[in-house]
């Protein structure tokens, strides 16, 4: 039923309309003569409070508000991949064609192309019993993504008819299913309300790491497929580069990148870079597996509140097809601030630092949409949504509410450190503050894919780094010469771990991605320097001679050695360490 009311109050992105009895919470509405998109966020008697997803300048009391009968939803189906959408899933390329280089108000465009015909491969036949989540067809959407066309959740029955292989638009009927509730027509296009998680059968424990080729994250603070990670850091500490590196190299099937209240040029950079870059696994352009949601900081604030939901719903849709999906949200603080702004306009009683009291529960609900699951449908598919959320704490102060509430939920914490960034130590992830609760669960994977002593090597390096921070305190007081020889070797080793392993150059063609095996061997080599060094000390060699062995320079450059040449090179280096230390006798 369509309800029509009238605007009575306008204050920034929030308006109040009366005559709205009969509308529902979170129902989508069209506001004013330019039919701006809005969403009902509060109902009281006849009046509804509405957040408007577009600039409200020029609206007047008395203008009409029309309800649409449904909640804010996204359209799911072929035509999503490789696109860039705004916060409420309007394709920015299409908006550009209509309104030029600047985004005008009230542009009404379909989320996905309704005219384009897709080559549909039938995967079911008449008489099959199917239920929600079952695959009845496939569309090769991009070189990297084969979209599985699924029976929408909640539909269950026998296929009465299904189209043969051929070209269809997303709105054409492709199948008829006889259910207890009558015959349902199914199209490739599905709609799903953004604020509601898509159903799954069961949540599983994540035990496979999401490998991104970033040494600090993969080796020391791994995130599992289906896990969630937070990257808090002050500005300039490299959040965005870290996020983009993950989006580029993470071994997920689908990447959803949500630019939430961030810089326009960053989205442009992604649009420019990703089509050029190749997926290290498949060789396909990275853009082919990527969906971008962009609500830049100067786009309407209410759409910023919605954009993370739009992103996660798209991610879940691909998860349901059986894919591993990784969602990057940069930055969740802007999302929280959007909530705060709307809450302030509603004159709600503020919680900590002006954020609404429901901040913690909203954050938790969002991160809980991550997970490794068994999908719905007759056949069990295992798939996952991983979430990596950047947090921008004001003044870099991690005690602020968004960071704290995020850390309560996320199992991985990559703490970006401004002082490391100042020294151009990138990624500036502080190895003493960061943690990952997935180390135990991914240990088996690493043992299978590298060597059995992966865990021991990693832990040993961590212990050394911890030790270094203690030794540094002593050095600050009494100078480096006062340390015993064995500690000198430790300090040299940790310097190598920091400079030659942890530091990784995102802009170097080789170093930008480091395979798990290379990571393991690099770390193993550095640790072996420490072991051999201590052994040499035992033979009576002075630490300053050990530290001065020339092979050190090669260790310093091993990260730039191409994956193909690496096995030979690393052998040379390992032998070199033993030989050069042996020669000191």
């Amino acid at each position, binding site marked *: 039923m369509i309800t029509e009311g009238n605007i009575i*109050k*306008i*204050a920034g992105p929030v308006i*109040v309309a009366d005559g709205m009895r009969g509308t529902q919470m979170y129902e989508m509405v069209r506001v004013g003569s330019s039919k701006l998109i809005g969403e009902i966020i509060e109902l009281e008697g006849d009046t509804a409070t509405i957040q408007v997803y577009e*600039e409200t*300048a*020029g609206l*007047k*009391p*008395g203008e009409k508000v029309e309800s649409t009968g449904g909640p804010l939803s996204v359209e799911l189906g072929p035509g999503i991949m490789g696109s*860039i959408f705004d916060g409420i899933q309007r394709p*920015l390329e299409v*908006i*550009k064609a209509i309104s*030029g*280089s*600047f*985004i*005008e108000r009230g542009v009404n465009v379909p989320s996905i192309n309704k005219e384009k015909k897709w080559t549909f491969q039938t995967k079911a036949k008449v008489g099959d019993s199917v239920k929600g989540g079952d695959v009845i067809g496939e569309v090769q959407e991009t070189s990297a993504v084969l979209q599985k066309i699924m029976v929408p959740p909640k539909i269950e029955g026998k296929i009465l008819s299904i189209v043969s292989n051929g070209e269809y638009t997303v709105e054409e009927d492709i199948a008829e299913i006889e259910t207890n509730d009558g015959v349902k027509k199914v199209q490739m296009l599905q709609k799903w309300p953004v604020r509601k998680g898509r159903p799954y059968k069961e949540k599983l424990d994540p035990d496979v790491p999401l490998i991104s080729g970033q040494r600090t994250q993969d080796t020391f603070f791994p995130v599992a497929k289906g896990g969630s990670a937070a990257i808090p850091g002050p*500005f*300039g500490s490299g959040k*965005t580069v870290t996020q983009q590196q993950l989006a580029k190299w993470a071994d997920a099937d689908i990447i959803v990148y949500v630019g939430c209240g961030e*810089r*326009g*040029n960053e*989205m*442009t*950079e992604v649009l*420019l870079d990703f089509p050029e870059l190749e997926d290290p696994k498949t060789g396909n352009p990275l853009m082919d597996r990527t969906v971008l949601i*962009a609500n*830049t*900081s*100067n*786009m309407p604030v209410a759409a910023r509140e919605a954009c993370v939901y739009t992103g996660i719903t798209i991610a879940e849709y691909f998860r349901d097809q059986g894919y591993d999906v990784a969602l990057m949200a940069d930055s969740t603080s802007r999302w929280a*601030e959007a909530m*705060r*702004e709307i809450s*302030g306009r509603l004159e709600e009683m*503020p919680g900590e*630092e*002006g954020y609404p009291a429901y901040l913690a529960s909203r954050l938790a609900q969002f991160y809980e949409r991550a997970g490794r699951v068994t999908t719905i449908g007759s056949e069990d598919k295992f798939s996952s949504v991983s979430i990596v959320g950047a947090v*921008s704490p*004001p*003044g*870099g*102060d991690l005690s602020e509410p968004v960071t704290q509430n995020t850390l309560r939920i996320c199992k991985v914490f990559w703490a970006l450190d*401004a002082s490391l960034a*100042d*020294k*151009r*130590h990138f990624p500036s992830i502080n190895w003493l503050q960061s943690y990952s609760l997935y180390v135990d669960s991914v240990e088996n994977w690493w043992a299978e894919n590298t060597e059995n002593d992966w865990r021991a090597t990693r832990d040993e390096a961590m212990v050394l780094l911890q030790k270094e921070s203690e030794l540094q305190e002593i*050095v*600050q*007081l*009494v*100078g*480096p010469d006062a340390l015993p020889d064995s500690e000198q070797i430790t300090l040299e080793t940790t310097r190598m771990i920091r400079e030659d392993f942890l530091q990784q150059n995102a*802009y170097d063609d080789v170093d930008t991605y480091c395979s798990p095996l290379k990571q393991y061997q690099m770390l193993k080599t550095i640790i072996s320097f420490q072991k051999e060094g201590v052994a040499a000390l035992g033979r009576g060699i002075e630490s300053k001679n050990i530290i001065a062995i020339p092979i050190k*320079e090669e260790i310093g*450059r091993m990260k730039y050695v191409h994956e193909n040449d690496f096995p030979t090179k690393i052998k040379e280096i390992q032998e070199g360490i033993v030989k050069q230390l042996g020669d000191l006798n």
Partner: protein
Amino acid sequence: MNADIKTKEYTTVTEVAGPLMIVEGVEGVAYSEIVEIETPNGEHRRGQVLEVENDRAVVQVFEGTTDLNTKTTKTRFTGETAKIGVSVDMMGRIFDGTGKPIDGGPDIIPEMELDINGAPMNPSAREFPAEFIQTGISTIDGMNTLVRGQKLPIFSGSGLPHNDLAAQIARQAKVRAAEDTDFAVIFAAMGITHEEANFFMKDFERTGALERVTVFMNLADDPSIERILTPKMALTTAEYLAFEKDMHVLVILTDLTNYCEALREVSAARNEVPGRRGYPGYMYTDLSGIYERAGRIRGKEGSITQMPILVMPQDDITHPIPDLTGYITEGQIVLSRELYRKGIYPPVDVLPSLSRLMSGGIGNERTREDHSGVSDQLYSAYAEGRNLRDLVAVVGEEALTPRDQSFLKFADEFEKQFMTQAKDEDRTIEETLDLGWKLLSLLPKSELKRVKEEHIPKYLP
């Protein structure tokens, strides 16, 4: 639309408080529209609708609410959002903070009327900025490279020479592929003193740049609420010159701190729930409405490069104004009081400074192949040298290893030779990079891990 509603005058002001005034009994008032106000003694002012509920409108008065009363103040709702008439004739002219000419010249005959709030640039229409601007200042060109279409603020403190630096950049900035495109400078002053404004005006005059400069001037003794309009006026003009007239526009905004103070004033008057330190919760959104109006558009010749200046209260970079700015802008140039005290000009502290768009603007064909390596190496060496200074203070220089002593020496020479330059010294990027190599030669060769191996024999003196 009913014409008489639009032009109807109201004398129904019911409340005046701080910069706000409430008018009741109004009809057909649009959110954000501009209001013309006639004070009881016949003076004309302008305001903007901040909130409208039924027949009650909250209006913010730009020129201040002094002299307004609740009896005879006349208000007229114009039915239009704030607009500015733009034309190329604006170059070489001086306007007040609301866009009225104050240089005694004729009124501008506008070619177009543009909404000063602009519209967000479509990210898929943007061109990624990658064109190197040589400012002639080593710490910027070499280590925090500015590119066309970037927004790079100067974070300063009171008493530091940010104005000299900004003027020097405006004077020296050039693009190396010397194709002859038009450039323009837009200078928007918000709440700065006459003296500061004069400094810039004299500098523009002295260098003959004045005819390419458009000035929007809201000085310290002008109404503070007017400042809320000033940057928007300036950027709307910049968008017109850049994207309609194909010019490369450099916009200098100073001082953003005063702008934010004005925002806070309005917010407080409206009894809004305050965010950090009393600044409104929407300050991030508001500031990005300014900063994000820098950039380039695919298929268009022109560009908008922004250099906002802001004085950090108590030199505190975590204060909400620099903090939110840093999250939006593409880097920051941070001036340091400590360096300035040592007599270093420009006192750019490279360690907290950053240019996010640097990597796209440098390297082969843009600057020189060794640029990124040299920059990284200078950064880490200087950071290490500075760390060692603390250690020396405790254990004395003799206790250091020869390696550490070389880093210490490097840091001193870096400050003396690389950072320090004269106010009219315009170094080419080659001079800057060669100077960098000369300083790196103070370090043991094996420490040069950040530069490419093949560049060492080629460039190291």
